[in-house]
């Protein structure tokens, strides 16, 4: 926890414009030269309900939401249920203030809208007393009045941003620029007036009492602020994907929406269909006909994709699916992150089915591994799945613009042209031996596409002969099974030869290891850095290749440490189990740090987990995390 960073939390109800306001504020901070990282907390409803966005900004690198926060802008929930009545769920209007106090750091700043929040309700919170105990600085401001005076009530966001900027001594230039980009006419004018007036109130009506100021920094290159969902969508675009089919489901909808909005200008096709069975089946159909295609969903929708996934595996139709995890089981907590669909994604579908699964750990990895998924899927004719979660999906961070300056790769991998088909093996009747196990390299038999001359064959989910006809001959069965299974080994060999997709951090010679996967990577990386600074001998490994598993890399890492703690956002230690199954050992070395309360890890929780584990202490962790001791092999 350092004072050289701002963690600004804007809280209100769904529909209060929290998202757009925070997006612009984050961008302004990025433009001012800071590194930013956002975290979004929202309920599953359209209007009202307690929602907030946190923006962490610092000169140093920021890889997670950080620990707690130090500036609260509580707008009040203007869409609260029965704001004037005491219903069983309490007064929701005040929740943006009342629900956020526990995480506020000592010495933190609170700005709340006294124009919306009831004076008596605020008094009941004993805010003054708590502020004194925690060294908080509280600034009640009539944001609503200010907004109404110049424009409309909803503009109290802008008033709040103006006060924030003034209290932090932050220049308004970037905020104004962004407003000018996003608005025009009377709306723009009203917002600029509100911003200015709010800004001027500090120093005149409001006296600044706190020390927190905006950090300063400088970027050497141009930065872009984008989310994990953006990165996945952009990776798909650059891989030449031009077909997506889907059905709305939080949080997967983000990727679906981004591609649906961009594809029309790119000659691509997006289809919103009747259900997720259809969605994945459409992606299979488009891919079969020669287009790079994808689909995806979150857990509940992915369950419906199980059978088209198996069909793609058996017919060796290239396919990319994305699975955006949210807290389960069943409908679970639709807007909260969790990493509990790992086993589901690894094993769903009947038979000895085979697939590739990548779990990117941050925004850059989300882009790169999506491209990699397309490349592998089309080269090896196998489904590749990107598994990520609500956290990575919705969090924004700044990325070097030049990172994206790469050539697109639309090629169709192991697909033949008509010219090549003329040289390829056919049976006596002229049918193309599309599933030819005799000449297959790395298990891959090149394919033709419908409409090509000389390429006709039958694709079927039944076991099949080289030309694709249903065939239950034991020899053919064994040859075809072995050939398909060989692909996964070949992919592992290829991945081992390329630059590793695993992320290593911390002191290389450390005796203690922390292992994680997916979106928990950032918090773990910060925790390890903090532990190293404190002199602890710790290093970290974040694994991205879920299947085929990076056996050599993980084995080497685990052999090099005395003990290791596996950090993941689920209750049943799924990734730890996966490691043990894949490697068949290390059961005595691996403990778990688990969190499944709907909120992602903060670095301090990982640090504490390490301390408890290392000291073999009996005490319970202070946060809602659970330590699961080693179980043996």
């Amino acid at each position, binding site marked *: 926890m350092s004072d050289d960073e701002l963690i600004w939390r804007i809280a209100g109800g769904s529909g209060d414009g929290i998202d757009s306001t925070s997006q612009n504020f984050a961008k302004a901070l990025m433009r001012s030269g800071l590194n930013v990282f956002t975290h979004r907390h929202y309920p599953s409803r359209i209007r009202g309900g307690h929602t907030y966005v946190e923006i962490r900004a610092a000169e140093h690198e920021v890889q997670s939401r950080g620990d707690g926060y130090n500036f609260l802008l509580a707008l009040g929930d203007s869409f609260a249920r029965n704001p004037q009545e005491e219903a069983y769920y309490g007064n929701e209007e005040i929740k943006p203030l009342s629900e956020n106090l526990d995480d506020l750091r000592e010495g933190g700043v609170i700005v709340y809208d006294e124009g919306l929040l009831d004076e008596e309700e605020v008094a009941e919170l004993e805010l003054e007393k708590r502020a004194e105990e925690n060294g908080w600085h509280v600034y009640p401001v009539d944001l609503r009045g200010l907004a109404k005076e110049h424009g409309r009530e909803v503009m109290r966001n802008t008033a709040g941003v103006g006060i924030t900027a003034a209290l932090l001594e932050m220049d308004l230039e970037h905020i104004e620029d962004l407003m000018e980009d996003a608005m025009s006419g009377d709306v723009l004018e009203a917002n600029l007036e509100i911003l200015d007036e709010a800004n001027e109130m500090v120093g005149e009506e409001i006296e600044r009492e706190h020390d927190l100021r905006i950090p300063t920094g400088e970027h050497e290159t141009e930065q872009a602020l984008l989310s994990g969902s953006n990165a996945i969508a952009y990776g798909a675009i650059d891989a030449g994907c031009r*077909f997506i089919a889907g059905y709305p489901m939080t949080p997967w909808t983000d990727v679906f929406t981004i591609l649906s909005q961009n594809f029309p200008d790119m*000659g691509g096709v997006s*289809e919103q269909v*009747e259900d997720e069975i259809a969605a994945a089946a459409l992606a299979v159909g*488009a891919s*079969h006909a020669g287009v790079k295609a994808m689909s995806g969903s979150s857990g509940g929708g992915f369950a419906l994709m199980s059978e*088209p996934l198996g069909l793609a595996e058996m017919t060796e139709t290239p396919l990319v699916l994305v699975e955006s995890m949210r807290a389960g089981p069943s409908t679970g907590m639709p807007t909260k992150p969790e990493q509990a669909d790992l086993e589901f994604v690894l094993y769903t579908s009947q038979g000895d089915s085979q697939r590739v699964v990548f779990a990117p750990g941050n925004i850059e990895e989300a882009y790169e591994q999506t491209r990699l998924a397309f490349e592998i899927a089309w080269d090896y004719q196998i489904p590749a799945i990107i598994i990520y979660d609500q956290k990575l999906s919705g969090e924004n961070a700044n990325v070097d613009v030049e990172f994206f300056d790469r050539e697109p790769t639309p090629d169709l991998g192991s697909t033949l042209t008509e010219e090549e088909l003329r040289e390829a093996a056919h049976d006596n009747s002229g*049918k193309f031996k599309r599933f030819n196990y005799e000449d297959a390299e790395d298990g891959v038999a090149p394919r033709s*596409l419908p409409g*090509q001359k000389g390429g006709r064959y039958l694709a079927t989910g039944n076991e099949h002969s080289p030309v694709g006809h249903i065939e239950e001959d034991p020899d053919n069965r064994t040859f075809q099974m072995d050939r398909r299974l060989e692909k996964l080994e070949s992919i592992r060999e290829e991945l081992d030869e390329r630059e590793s997709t695993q992320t290593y951090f911390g002191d290389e010679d450390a005796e203690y290891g922390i292992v994680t996967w997916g979106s928990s990577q950032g918090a773990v990386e910060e925790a390890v850095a903090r532990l190293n600074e404190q002199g602890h001998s710790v290093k970290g490994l974040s694994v991205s290749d879920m299947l085929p598993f990076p056996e050599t890399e993980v084995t080497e890492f685990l052999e090099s440490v005395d003990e290791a703690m596996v950090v993941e956002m689920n209750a049943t230690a799924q990734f730890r189990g996966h490691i043990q199954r894949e490697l068949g050992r290390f059961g005595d070395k691996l403990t778990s740090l688990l969190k499944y309360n709907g909120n992602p890890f903060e670095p301090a929780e990982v640090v504490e987990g390490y301390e408890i584990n290392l000291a073999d202490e009996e005490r319970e962790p202070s946060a809602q995390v659970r330590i699961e001791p080693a179980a043996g092999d």
Partner: protein
Amino acid sequence: MSAFNAIGEQREIDRDEFTPGVEPQPTWCPGCGDFGVLKALKQALPEVGKTPEEVLTVTGIGCSGKLNSYLDTYGFHTIHGRSLPVARAAKLANPELEVIAAGGDGDGYGIGGNHWIHTARENHDMTYIVFNNEIFGLTKGQTSPTSPKGHKSKTQPSGSAKTPLRPLSMSLNAGASYVARTAAVNPNQAKEIIKEAIEHDGFAHIDFLTQCPTWNKDARQYVPYIDVQESDDYDFDVTDRREAAEMMRETEDVLNEGTVLTGRYYVDEDRPSYSQEKKAVGEMPDDPLAERYFDDDAEWERSYDLLERHT
């Protein structure tokens, strides 16, 4: 320069070209109605000028699903009930392909019913043949969505308590722009209807009565059959939705009483196909998307050019 030169090829086509060397003889039971569909297709395709490699036949699971094992085109034998989503995406990916989807009554009207409704609603330009034998055949005779009320089977030993689904009426209401019923015992009509369905620009649904001599002896052979266009007893306008709906309802009602009515029921030549609609709103490229991947001069857009909105 096309990468798909089987498409639009102009040449003499022999119907024998559609008989695969691998499995020339189907494994269907003797007397099975499925032979009638196969035969009608083999006759219809050359007559509408289609060569085997410009046709993609997409099937579901069941006896009917084996159609493309015995019909030599490009084929995709998918999974139970899912032929339509696979087929319509292939058509969107490469609209020049002639796409024919096929499956049974359990496949299309039961497990795949949702896909059928939405494919009809969207009016994809394809032919959909449902082998309707009013029974689950391959799994040995269970009641299907079109089995008559009271039909006894191993899974409904006291007779089905459900009224059968109305395939023609459902398809009309869902939005199909061509709806017909034919029967395996009426090969000439079947061939003509298949030709019309293939040439129709939109979703053409053929409810094809295929007797199951092994598991559904009650349905006999769907004889005698009546062609509603040729019979003097029936007079309705196939382009009139209201008249078509009435005729469909009657046809569905009398089938289980032993009167087999067949023919064209609804034809709407004006409704734009789905790809026409999609192109009209700017959500589908004019040229086949599948061609682009073989075009060396194609310029591929990059995400790098989208970053301005993020800076």
